[in-house]
C-alpha cells in the first residue's frame, strides 16, 4: 500500500483506494512509455535499416560528426538504455545520457530555426515531440527509478 499522506480529500471517496493503489504504478507507466518508445526506435535502427545507413542519413547529412561512433552510442542508448529505463535499472545514469542525446535531437537535428521548427508534424518532424520526450527523460533523471524499479529492489541508486 502506497503512502497516501498528504493526498487531497477525494470528491468521490469510493475512488480513493483505487487511486492510492495506482499511484506507484503511474511512474512505472511513464518509464515504460518513455523507455518502450525508445526501444522501438532502437530496434528499427537494427531491423529496418543498417546502422551505417542511419548514421549517414540522420547524422552525417546533418553534419553531426563523428557519425559512426555516435551512431553506436545512440544505438546503445536506444536498446540497452531503453530497456534499463523500462526496468528502472541504473535509471539516473541512463536518463542522464539519454537526456544529452535528446538535447542534440532537439537543438541540432530537429530545431529547424526555432519556433518555425516547433510543430511536430511538419515535414521531417519538428522539435515539439523530441522536446516533450526529452523533458520526460529529464523528469526520470530527477526522480530516479521510483517505487516499481530494480533500483528500488537493489536498494541502491545513483
Amino acid at each position, binding site marked *: 500500500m502506497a503512502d497516501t499522506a498528504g493526498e487531497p480529500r477525494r470528491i468521490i471517496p469510493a475512488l480513493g483506494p483505487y487511486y492510492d493503489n495506482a499511484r506507484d504504478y503511474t511512474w512505472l507507466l*511513464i518509464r515504460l512509455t518513455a523507455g518502450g518508445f525508445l526501444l522501438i526506435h532502437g530496434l528499427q535502427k537494427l531491423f529496418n535499416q543498417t546502422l551505417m545507413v542511419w548514421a549517414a542519413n540522420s547524422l552525417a547529412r546533418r553534419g553531426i560528426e563523428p557519425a559512426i561512433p555516435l551512431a553506436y552510442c545512440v544505438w546503445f542508448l536506444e536498446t540497452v538504455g531503453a530497456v534499463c529505463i523500462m526496468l528502472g535499472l541504473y535509471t539516473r545514469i541512463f536518463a542522464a545520457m539519454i537526456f544529452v542525446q535528446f538535447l542534440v535531437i532537439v537543438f541540432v537535428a530537429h530545431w529547424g530555426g526555432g519556433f518555425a521548427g516547433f510543430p511536430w508534424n511538419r515535414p521531417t518532424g519538428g522539435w515539439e515531440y523530441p522536446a516533450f520526450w526529452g523533458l520526460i527523460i529529464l523528469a526520470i533523471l530527477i526522480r530516479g527509478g521510483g517505487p516499481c524499479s530494480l533500483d528500488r529492489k537493489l536498494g541502491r541508486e545513483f
Partner: protein
Amino acid sequence: MACHPGDCGRHAAGARHHQADDKLDRGVCFGQPGAARHRVVDPARLCGFLSGDVGAVCIILGLFTRAFALAIGIQFLIITFHAHWAQGFAWNRPGGGWEYPLFWGMSWVAIGLRGGGPYSLDRLLGREL
C-alpha cells in the same frame, strides 16, 4: 473545418491536414499559424477550446487535474486511432504518425491516475476528483 494542405506550413503538399492537428498544437502553443481561423464558435471548436486551451492551463496548474486528464485522454484516443492512424507509426512521417499522440495519451493516463500531485492547486484546495 476546411483543410488547407500546404498553407499551414506544417505539412508536405498533399498531406492530410486534420482538425486534430490544430487542436493538438493549440494545447501548448498559442498564436501558431492556423489559430486565427478559429473564429466561429461551433461545438467541435468549443470542445477543442475547453480541452486544448482551458484544459492545458488547468493541467499545468494542477487544477481539476483528473477531470481534464480524462477528457483530454479521450481526445487523444481519437487523435491516435482516428486522425493519425493512417499515417503509420513514425512521428516524422508525412502528416505525422500516431507515435507522438500515443506517447502523449500514455502520459494522460499516468496524470489521470496520479492526479495533481504535490505541486498542484488540487493539493492546495485539499480536494480532488
